[in-house]
């Protein structure tokens, strides 16, 4: 089965999200669609899946034109999709999820669950999955949930499978397993479209690579192309791939965490007695799969967690038990992991967001009144210094691109006098150009003698920026290791395996 997209154009009002995009993928082939966030990859796939109607262009399946007015049509035609955000009902079992939408029914509309169970077992067996049809989806690990998505697509005899950023939620090991599954699918004749912005994965798995930039196809590449070549194609200019930094010049320990324990309202421990130190001029990277206590760690430092025990000392100040404002006043800069939720007020202007955590006095406020002249000057200067691309300081933060939003957050935090920088996922959902910039800022902060706590689920980022790496697993420290520890070792540590010869 060969799928061909010819001249697909999709407009949203004045924006052209897809501009005459053409591509083909054949039986037993993996086509990678490479592009930055916002390049139009997902829009294209939503057209293919019938969620959007193309304004121009056509889709052909084995040479015959295909009309898609909804996902139902796409599924009927044999096109399946594994979504970035799983389309599963958490409180349903695997079998129920798989049959959802094309339920087989028996007498008087009773569900034929046995048939669905059988289907799940059959497909699981074929690909060597270990999936219990009667397990509740919400009780399954993320990697297994993704397999349920795959089973769901295959149960409808999908001959073309689209994977939309499938590795974003996976550990390195799970990613490797997924790639194994994709190879197996390819061997069984399935045509695969693999959407990603991760160069390494694309090079590892794809037969052909199509690069998309700003809604248009800008080139084809073979998997033998170098990272630099692909990145340049994707971004449109040569890209600095490595972070240049001098060896750290760590000073005395400045930030000391002892026996930190964080529990939720129900008393479950999300962090269970962790201890570490960060010296002046040092970056400590916190690695781990999402949900192993990283969020609780940063929030505990900031005073955003309710039940915190143990000690967090910054220089001579104890931070546990202090309000957020006191923590900020102690010189802690905070780049939250989700800028849209905790970092920015979308309806506020850039200028207002830049003073968000300094509304209590000088320099932005005097006698209870905002000094708008000072704020405007400051915002203007900061906008230029931090290279925020926007129509002006009065632009609303919510309308900026992810990279520019993040630069606003970074600018706000780094424009204060800092004694500690807590950066959680500082480059999540950020374009390559902004990543370079933010990484440079983090290194510059370190070089200015500030201790930096860097939390990221992206191992590459941790390895590139950290001087030492702490791996968290289920709320405990698996180990604190040097930055040149092999990736494989780190990967195992992220799965909870304590490496030999390292002390926790």
């Amino acid at each position, binding site marked *: 089965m060969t799928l061909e997209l010819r001249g697909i154009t999709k407009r*949203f009002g004045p924006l052209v999200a897809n501009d005459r995009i053409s591509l083909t993928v054949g039986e037993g082939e993996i086509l990678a669609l490479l592009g930055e966030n916002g390049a139009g990859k997902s829009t294209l796939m939503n057209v293919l899946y019938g969620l959007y109607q193309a304004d121009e262009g056509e889709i052909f399946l084995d040479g015959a034109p295909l009309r898609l007015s909804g996902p139902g049509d796409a599924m009927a035609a044999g096109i399946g999709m594994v979504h970035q955000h799983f389309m599963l009902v958490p409180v349903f079992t695997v079998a129920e999820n798989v049959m959802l939408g094309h339920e087989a029914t028996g007498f008087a509309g009773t569900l034929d669950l046995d048939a669905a169970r059988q289907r799940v077992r059959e497909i699981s067996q074929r690909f060597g999955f270990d999936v219990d049809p009667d397990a509740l989806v919400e009780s399954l690990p993320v990697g297994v949930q993704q397999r349920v998505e795959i089973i769901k697509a295959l149960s409808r005899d999908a001959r073309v499978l689209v994977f939309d950023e499938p590795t974003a939620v996976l550990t390195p090991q799970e990613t490797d397993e997924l790639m194994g599954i994709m190879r197996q699918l390819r061997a069984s004749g399935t045509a695969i479209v693999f959407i990603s912005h991760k160069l390494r994965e694309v090079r590892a798995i794809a037969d052909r690579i199509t690069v998309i930039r700003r809604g248009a196809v800008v080139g084809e590449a073979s998997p033998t192309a170098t990272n630099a070549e692909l990145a340049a194609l994707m971004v449109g200019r040569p890209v600095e791939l490595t972070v240049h930094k001098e060896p750290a010049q760590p000073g005395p320990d400045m930030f000391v965490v002892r026996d930190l324990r964080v529990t939720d309202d129900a008393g479950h421990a999300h962090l269970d007695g962790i201890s570490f130190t960060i010296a002046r001029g040092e970056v400590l990277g916190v690695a781990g799969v999402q949900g192993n206590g990283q969020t609780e760690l940063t929030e505990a430092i900031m005073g955003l967690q309710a039940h915190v025990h143990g000690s967090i000392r910054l220089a001579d100040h104890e931070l546990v038990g202090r309000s957020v404002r006191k923590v900020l006043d102690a010189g802690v800069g905070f780049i939250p992991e989700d800028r849209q939720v905790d970092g920015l007020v979308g*309806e506020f202007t850039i200028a207002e967001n830049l003073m968000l955590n300094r509304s209590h006095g000088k320099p932005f406020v005097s006698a209870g009144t905002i000094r708008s002249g000072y704020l405007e000057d400051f915002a203007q200067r900061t906008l230029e210094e931090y290279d925020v691309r926007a129509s002006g300081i009065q632009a609303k933060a919510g309308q900026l691109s992810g990279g520019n939003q993040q630069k606003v957050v970074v600018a706000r935090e780094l424009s204060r006098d800092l004694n500690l920088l807590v950066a959680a996922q500082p480059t999540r959902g950020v374009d390559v*150009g902004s990543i370079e910039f933010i990484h440079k800022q983090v290194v510059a902060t370190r070089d200015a003698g500030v201790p930096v706590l860097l939390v990221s689920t*992206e191992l*590459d980022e941790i390895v590139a920026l950290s001087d030492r790496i702490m791996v968290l697993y289920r709320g405990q420290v698996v180990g604190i290791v040097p930055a040149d520890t092999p990736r494989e070792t780190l990967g195992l540590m992220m799965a909870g395996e304590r490496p030999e010869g390292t002390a926790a």
Partner: protein
Amino acid sequence: MSTNDETQPAPAGAPAAGAVKDPKEPPQQPGRFDGVLREIVAGNAMVAVLSVFLAVVVGSLMILLTDENVRDTAGYIGARPTDFFSAVWTSISDAYSALFRGAVYNTNLEGFQGRIRPLTETLKFAGPLILAGLGVGLAFRAGMFNIGGRGQMLLAGAAAGWVGVSVDLPTVLHLPLAVLAGALAGALWAGIAGFLKAQSGAHEVIVTIMLNYVGYYLVFYALSKQGLLQAPGSLNPKSQPMPESVVLPKLLGDRFNLHAGFLIALVAVAVVWWLLNKSALGFRFRAVGENPDAARAAGINVGRTYLVVMLIAGGLVGLAGVNQILGTTTSGVTVDLDAGIGFDAITVALLGRSRPLGILAAGLLFGGLKAGGFSMAAAEGIPVEIVLVIQSLIVLFIAAPPLVRAIFRLPKEATA
């Protein structure tokens, strides 16, 4: 070590707007005029105005339905259609010109003073609507739904009334004291909801609604009890009339009912405008209202903000109650003191988009509808409820902006 492949995917939905969000290119900057035009056409202000227009249109249909002449002529519309259409025209134009005469300028009377009187009535009605509207609108901006206008007004009116009848002071002290007592009572009553939300997360909608009942019966009890608020020797649930020394002075002499309460409203508009747009406190209100998570992470005490904003909001609504008892219905405190203003204030705040100047405009409009509604009823026999229908329809249309946009084929709100 490559670092270029580390981004996480953008949240779902982002790709739609993706094409313009390329970092290499600053966002398309439309011309200045283009932007202003878009704001006017697509912004809420336009929707507000069109909602009023739609409500008036539907109101007209209802006036027609209640008009006997129209109904009669409709019976022989086939034979003499002109009769029907002239009846329609007469009915609607009579109704709205009566409304105009009652609300703005009465051309039927002799002398400028008489003719302009309706406008002063409109301003009189607008005063408390604006004050209470500000109270509701300010809370809206901090993300709080203040449905407790009625209770806050009653408590405020009772407190001001109590100071009025129980304290004996010269006007210069007595009036400010009574005003202050009223504002304070309103503030505390609303503050309960803010405090409970800050402490326990109790939803302010439920709390303020329930406090309306508590306030109502509390005041009712005080008014029925000798020694509290009930006029001595009376059996009615009503206080003594307000003494001269606490009555808000008339602005245009005794021929007009317009009193200084309207000035208080204007000052309040200015103060709230400053508070929301210029002050650090208002900045925090807005931050909490738009995104409490980000506000909390930025060191703003969200709970305290809820409390403070409810105190100020309640104070403003309280001033509306003061306005009533010390200006409009000085004959004494009753449980009907709020005259529905506590709820109308929600409409005023919605129509005014919770902006002080918008609330001023919406308050004037509603004051006009109130003043004009009576004259419409008196002159044309149109039920005064039509005005209430129009008011309700305004809210209905404002609550459904996509509906209004669809009817007038307006472009979507510019958020790209």
